[in-house]
């Protein structure tokens, strides 16, 4: 005898599978499935409210205030919460001071001859030798060739071409890049060093190197390296090129020179946003 295609057993299996899937769905989807019309909810909730009122009348909820005050654990937690609030208030004061300082810096920057034009990175050409970022501001925003592009205190590159709405930024790690820099670090006696040098891009396309320092020059791993090149936009000078990653005797001239390798502090190819230093008219 043929069994009907839909019978109670099959429906039950289908419902079971559907409920298993529903029980493991994300909250939004699962609650959407279990949505009940308001009229249906009120059908249950209104009589339930009456019953709840009657229950509450028969057994009023206890006032637990005294217990809370007497409870040692809660007292301890209360003291902890007060200390936490104090700490937060202290942090608020510090943040307020920081905000005031930043406001002053911002006011000073407004007086300077540049404006910082924020831009989103909308493309990267993926070229190791000539890496180019495309950003979403262009000549309409007064961006033009040769302007420096930074992010935070770090130098990112310079604008090499513009259209009305976009610009191309060549990263400082491009193969033909080289610039004068200043190395800043601390000597063992605590004094600050400030050596200048010329960095070239390494073969890996991700770091810079110089072989010009003598073995005695105080260049150490961790020293910050700042742009000091007059061929760049003047306002770009002082931005960070990177930090010294290697400072060791040169493999070929170990008694004469140091090999110094500098690596940018950001992954320049994957920045989501940058700032263009646009001169004010």
């Amino acid at each position, binding site marked *: 005898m043929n069994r009907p295609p839909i019978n*109670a057993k099959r429906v*039950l299996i289908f*419902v*079971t599978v559907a*409920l*298993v*899937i*529903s*029980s*493991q*769905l*994300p*909250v*939004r989807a*699962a*609650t959407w*499935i*279990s*949505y*009940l019309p308001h009229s249906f909810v009120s059908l*249950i*909730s209104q*009589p*339930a*409210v*009456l*019953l*709840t009122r*009657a*229950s*509450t009348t*028969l*057994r009023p*909820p*206890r006032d637990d205030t005294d217990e809370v005050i007497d409870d040692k654990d809660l007292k301890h937690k209360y003291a902890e919460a007060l200390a936490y609030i104090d700490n937060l208030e202290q942090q608020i004061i510090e943040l307020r001071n920081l905000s005031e300082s930043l406001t002053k810096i911002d006011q000073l920057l407004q007086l300077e001859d540049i404006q910082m034009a924020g831009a989103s990175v909308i493309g990267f050409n993926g070229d190791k030798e000539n890496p180019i970022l495309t950003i979403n501001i262009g000549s309409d925003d007064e961006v033009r060739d040769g302007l420096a592009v930074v992010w935070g205190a770090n130098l990112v590159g310079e604008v090499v071409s513009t259209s009305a709405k976009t610009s191309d930024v060549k990263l400082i790690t491009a193969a033909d890049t080289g610039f004068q820099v200043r190395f800043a670090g601390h000597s063992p006696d605590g004094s600050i060093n400030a050596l200048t040098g010329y960095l070239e891009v390494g073969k890996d396309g991700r770091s810079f190197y110089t072989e010009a320092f003598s073995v005695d020059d105080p260049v150490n791993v961790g020293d910050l390296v700042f742009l000091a090149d007059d061929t760049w936009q003047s306002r770009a000078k002082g931005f960070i090129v990177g930090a010294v990653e290697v400072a060791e005797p040169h493999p070929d001239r170990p008694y004469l020179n140091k090999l110094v390798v500098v690596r940018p502090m950001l992954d320049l190819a994957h920045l989501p946003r940058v700032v263009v230093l646009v001169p004010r008219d």
Partner: protein
Amino acid sequence: MNWLLFAILTYIFLLMQVGLKPLLGIPNAQGVSPDFLLIFAVFIGIHAHSRSVAWAMLTIGLIANLLPGPIAEGPILGPEALGYLMGAFAVLQFRTLVFRESVVSLVIMVVVVGIFIQLVTILLYTGRGMPLFLGTPVPNWDVWDEMFYRFLMLLYSAVMAIPVGLVLLKLSPALISPPSQRG
């Protein structure tokens, strides 16, 4: 089975479960309270025809599922409903071992079947935290806390099954059809 009376009683037990919490909750309304829907479901499981048990308990499970659960955004359809469905299979296995017309049987079955129901429910809520599935973990969910709370609830329900069972046994002839008319 008289499905109309079943629907009316389900509605009454649902109201009791929601509305009597402030009165019966230990130590307060947010504490442990009896599960009237579970008592009714187990009663149906013991007395109804085997073909009706799964559907009846699934219906009660779906209704229990729509009550506020551990997720604040709203009920997640599945855990309780499947728990009750599992309970239906459990009750069908065990009911041949007990004297159906006794309230003591109902008390014992509430605990035994309730354990199956709660374990499946806890398992499905806990499964939401597994990276294998799409669901997000239930906030502040602790399996052992849940087991402990639900076990206390089962014990309380077992106690409440005595008066509720006595009433249901009186209603049994109207609710459950005689063997010749079962369906």
